[in-house]
């Protein structure tokens, strides 16, 4: 049986080597279930503190714990890697946003919101990245696929759950009015009440 310090060293080594986030269950396997989940969590928290102020941080993601570099160090680390990562087009990002915030949605739903056809490539590229997948079919003619975001999507954005996504904002009715509208007011409801008063121009 390892003492807590030795256990922490093993834990750190395992997390440094792992290619994917490690869930608590994986980590318990590391000690052949000799270590309780509580002890493990405490050690993980200690480890996270130990790494504060370094270029690498220990984070808790949707699928488990992982070491990753802090975004602030991007400027240096970029100098070593030759391949510049992709930036996604607006079409891709808007499609992703709709799937993330409105899931599960069909391609038709996405087209309704964006007001334009969604090219197959957009969906395919998000699937290829492992960020979305078809989780079922809607029971309507044509049985369109229902898309949802994956754990990988959350992991890759450094999130633990969809609730950590930036909140979806409702937009003010006019630019001038925007600052005065209390954030909790529902513009949609406002639209309905405003309707009878609206005259043709």
């Amino acid at each position, binding site marked *: 049986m390892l003492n807590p310090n030795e256990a922490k060293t093993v834990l750190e080594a395992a997390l440094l*080597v792992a290619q994917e986030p490690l869930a608590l269950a994986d980590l318990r396997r590391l000690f052949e279930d000799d270590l309780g989940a509580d002890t493990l969590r405490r050690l993980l928290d200690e480890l996270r503190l130990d790494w504060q102020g370094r270029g690498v941080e220990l984070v808790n993601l949707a699928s488990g714990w992982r070491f990753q570099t802090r975004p602030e160090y991007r400027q240096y680390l970029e100098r070593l890697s030759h391949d510049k990562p992709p*930036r996604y087009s607006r079409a891709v990002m808007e499609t992703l946003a*709709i799937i993330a915030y409105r899931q599960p949605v069909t391609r038709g739903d996405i087209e309704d919101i*964006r007001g334009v056809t969604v090219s197959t490539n957009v969906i395919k590229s998000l699937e290829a990245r492992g960020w979305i997948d078809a989780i079922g079919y809607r029971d309507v003619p044509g049985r369109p696929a229902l898309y949802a975001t994956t754990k990988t999507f959350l992991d*890759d954005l450094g999130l633990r759950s969809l609730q950590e996504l*930036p909140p979806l904002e409702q937009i003010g009715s006019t630019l001038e009015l925007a600052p005065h509208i209390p954030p909790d007011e529902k513009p949609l409801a406002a639209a309905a009440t405003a309707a009878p008063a609206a005259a043709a121009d």
Partner: protein
Amino acid sequence: MIGAAAANDAPLEPVHGALNFPMSPARARVAGASGARVATVRGEAFLEMPLDLYIPPDALEVFLDTFEGPLDLLLYLIRKASIDILDIPMARLTEQYLEYVELMRRRNLELAAEYLLMAALLMEIKSRMLLPRPRALREDEEDPRAELVRRLMEYESIKLAAHKLDALPVLGRDFFTLEVWLEQVAGQRLPQVCTRDLIAAWQSLLMRARMTQHHKVTREELSVREFMSSILRRLQGGQFTDFNSLFEPGKGVAVVVVSFLALLELVRESLIEVTQSEPYAPIYLKLAHAQSE
């Protein structure tokens, strides 16, 4: 579809600086005051979209291409004019929208069906608002604009969300995972590779090649390359080899032809030397530079 591909896949980048002022924190300033930048088109800053819609001809296509569709265009028009989205003056908006669509049409831009559909919808809403309605109906009938407003607001909040998502740190772009070497003392397991992995590697190369366009990755007869390798192997050691010995007529004409093509290619790439002392004398081949060992 309009420049469907073009409009849909318009890059995020130009848009940051261009038409998305409604969502930037400084949007009130931008929309309210003239003098703030509305769009950057081919590096040139446009201070304001003039009401007469004059855009330098060169810039127009780029400018219109940055719209993701009719909803995006409508939002732009509404936000630009500081119109109350809950009380849209349909006549004015429809007129401006049609002017843009007409501009696109005149510029021979491929016009997406969605744009025309929206034009029809706008005109329909406009006319429904002009029609006198019986008093009894008016009470519970919805404002003809309500559905459009709902869609515009839904799209705008998604647009904003897309920008926020794009601003989040992303694995591989803003942060990286670790690659600490797992030292294995004995019985090291070697990676398994199959032909599918090779295809994947080649595809990523092709993709990158198209992106950078520094070089061409072209298709070439594989068999020729294979014979080139096998001939070079035969010639290893630097000895002279009889030209005829390289051919195995028993394997068919195709193999002979491919062998010969491989030979020509090796000569072209100066990898081998071909010598003949006199006409009709035996031809000999030798590595252009024998290994120095």
